[in-house]
């Protein structure tokens, strides 16, 4: 049921973000998801592009940044927070067009009966930091262009290598982004990197569900502000039997939900454990783990104190018996 609703939301948002501009919808340039501005007729686009741009982002001189003009950088960020805060990282698995594209590839793999891969915890741990490195470079490189004379063709460094840039425009009939730009060394370096990464990610997505999300800097950026959102993902460790379904069902193999033991609640007597927030840095809020949890109220998605979705034995039994 929840999975079905999520898929409907994903498809509707895909149509809205990629084609909405053609009927005059303009959601601005501060969306917390991979709605790519390189798609002709898109309804709005990813905040990461604004973050790297001149004047409204970090490709701005220090003189401008430390002046009243800073409001130009702050304003898109405020809009980003306005979009982000109500639903937090639920944007990723429920509304991101690139996430849906990855889900389509996974669906094809499953139809072809090709077995996917699951990463070990060690591998996951090693890859975790890459998205933060990308995020830092996304700020440092534009700053270097504006202040330290780095060649201007380094502009929008992440957009230039982002696999969504060539892939998403395909859905409006634009295949032109698959190319090597031979203009000069910098453009050539970026476009070769972009094409290689796109190839790697296309193959990676086929074998590993949501492979790109492991490296997504938007996820890292959103995680920095997750406490500002009323969305909570809590685990009641006291009632957890440790079956490990949550880790097995997680499309990005997050072990933290399974491993979280919780902390003792000092306000309560005995060994009572207080619910613990398990919305970890890689969690996209797809709720696959909640659906797979066989215990009542062990995993709960909350919006303030209102329960959005909670694990239940009955739900899990019905879901799997129908399959």
């Amino acid at each position, binding site marked *: 049921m929840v999975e079905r609703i999520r898929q409907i939301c994903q498809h509707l948002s895909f149509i809205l973000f990629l084609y909405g501009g053609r009927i005059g919808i303009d959601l601005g340039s501060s969306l917390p998801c991979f709605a790519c501005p390189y798609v002709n007729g898109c309804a709005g686009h990813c905040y990461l592009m604004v973050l790297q741009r001149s*004047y409204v982002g970090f490709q701005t001189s220090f003189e*401008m940044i430390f*002046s*009243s*003009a800073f409001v*130009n950088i702050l304003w898109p960020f405020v809009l980003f927070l306005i979009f982000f805060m109500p639903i937090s990282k639920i944007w990723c698995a429920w509304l991101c067009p690139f996430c849906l594209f990855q889900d389509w590839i996974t669906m094809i793999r499953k139809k072809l009966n090709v*077995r996917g*891969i*699951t*990463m*070990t915890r060690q*591998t996951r741990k*090693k890859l975790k930091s890459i998205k933060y490195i990308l995020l830092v470079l996304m700020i440092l490189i534009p700053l270097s262009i504006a202040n330290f*004379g*780095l*060649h*201007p*063709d380094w502009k929008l460094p992440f957009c230039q290598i982002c696999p969504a840039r060539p892939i998403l425009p395909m859905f409006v009939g634009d295949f*032109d982004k*698959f*190319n*090597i*730009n*031979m*203009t*000069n*060394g*910098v*453009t050539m*370096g970026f*476009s*070769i*990197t972009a*094409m*290689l*990464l*796109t*190839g*790697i*990610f*296309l*193959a*990676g997505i086929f*074998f590993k569900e949501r492979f790109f999300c492991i490296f997504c800097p938007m996820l890292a950026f959103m995680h920095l502000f997750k406490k500002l959102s009323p969305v909570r993902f809590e685990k009641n460790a006291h009632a957890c039997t440790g079956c490990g379904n949550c880790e097995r069902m997680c499309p990005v193999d997050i072990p933290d939900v399974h491993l979280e033991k919780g902390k003792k609640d000092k306000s309560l007597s005995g060994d009572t454990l207080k619910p613990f927030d398990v919305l970890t840095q890689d969690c996209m809020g797809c709720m696959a783990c909640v659906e797979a949890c066989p215990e009542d109220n062990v995993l709960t998605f909350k919006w303030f104190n209102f329960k959005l979705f909670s694990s239940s034995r009955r739900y899990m039994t019905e879901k799997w018996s129908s399959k």
Partner: protein
Amino acid sequence: MLSALIKHLLLTCLLVLAGLLLNPVVIRADDLAGYPKEILHIQFTAMDRLQNGQTVQRFTVHQPRTSTGPVTLLYLENQDPVIYRATPVKQCYAIQVHKPSCIRIFAFAQDQQKSYVTCTDLVLFGKSKIPAKRTPASISESVLLRGLPHIALNNSDRHYWHQTGVPLTFTLVTASQTVTPTVMKLFKNNNSTTLVPEIAQPYRFLYTPPHDKRLKQSSLTTTRQDLLFTQVDHDGKQYHLAYVLRVHRSRHAHDNHKAGAVTLAAGSILFIGILLNKRKKPWWKE
């Protein structure tokens, strides 16, 4: 094994980046040395965005050697019927806008025998609620502009980003059609070539700005100033007409789609290769 691969890839990337950084491309200013001295020439310099969101384009006007009188610099903004005048501060002119604007600039000077008219178009993107300061031209200046022969770029308001490799059409605009059709000279990177008018339309000239190594090496916003020049006799007076065309490097002319497809395939094969090669000692669990 995976960590070694990642380390190797990171090291390669770092070396490539270091190579690019240590071998910076050169951005040179436009060179005026080769232009003929009998042309009134506009030389664009910096474009700045002010803290209040207004945009300023600065430029200088180089007078012909024989002209000693003052240069009149007038401009039209968007479809606005009002004509504005720009006045120099220390020989530097500035046009300031607070909203996206298509601007057509006319520079006019004369001596006893000849008149010099140079025209150019530019698009500036201002973003401010504070209106930019502009000085309306006097009535006599407005009348002067209306009858002035000049070279115009067709549909200049529709193509604000002129690129090398894209054909452009220029028209010789005069109040009367009695002007003898002439050839137009083109000055580019200190070289001059001749443009011949179209046979069916003797006042129209087609020009495709060629690609340029210097532009390719610099940024997308760097421009080259090509100068189109012609002489006409009009109302018993000789006019030296010029048009300053600013062209950027081409955005897409150097895209190689075949190489892109091959690199894409190489990326996929690389990933699948690693996956298959490590099957015996997997870095993932099944």
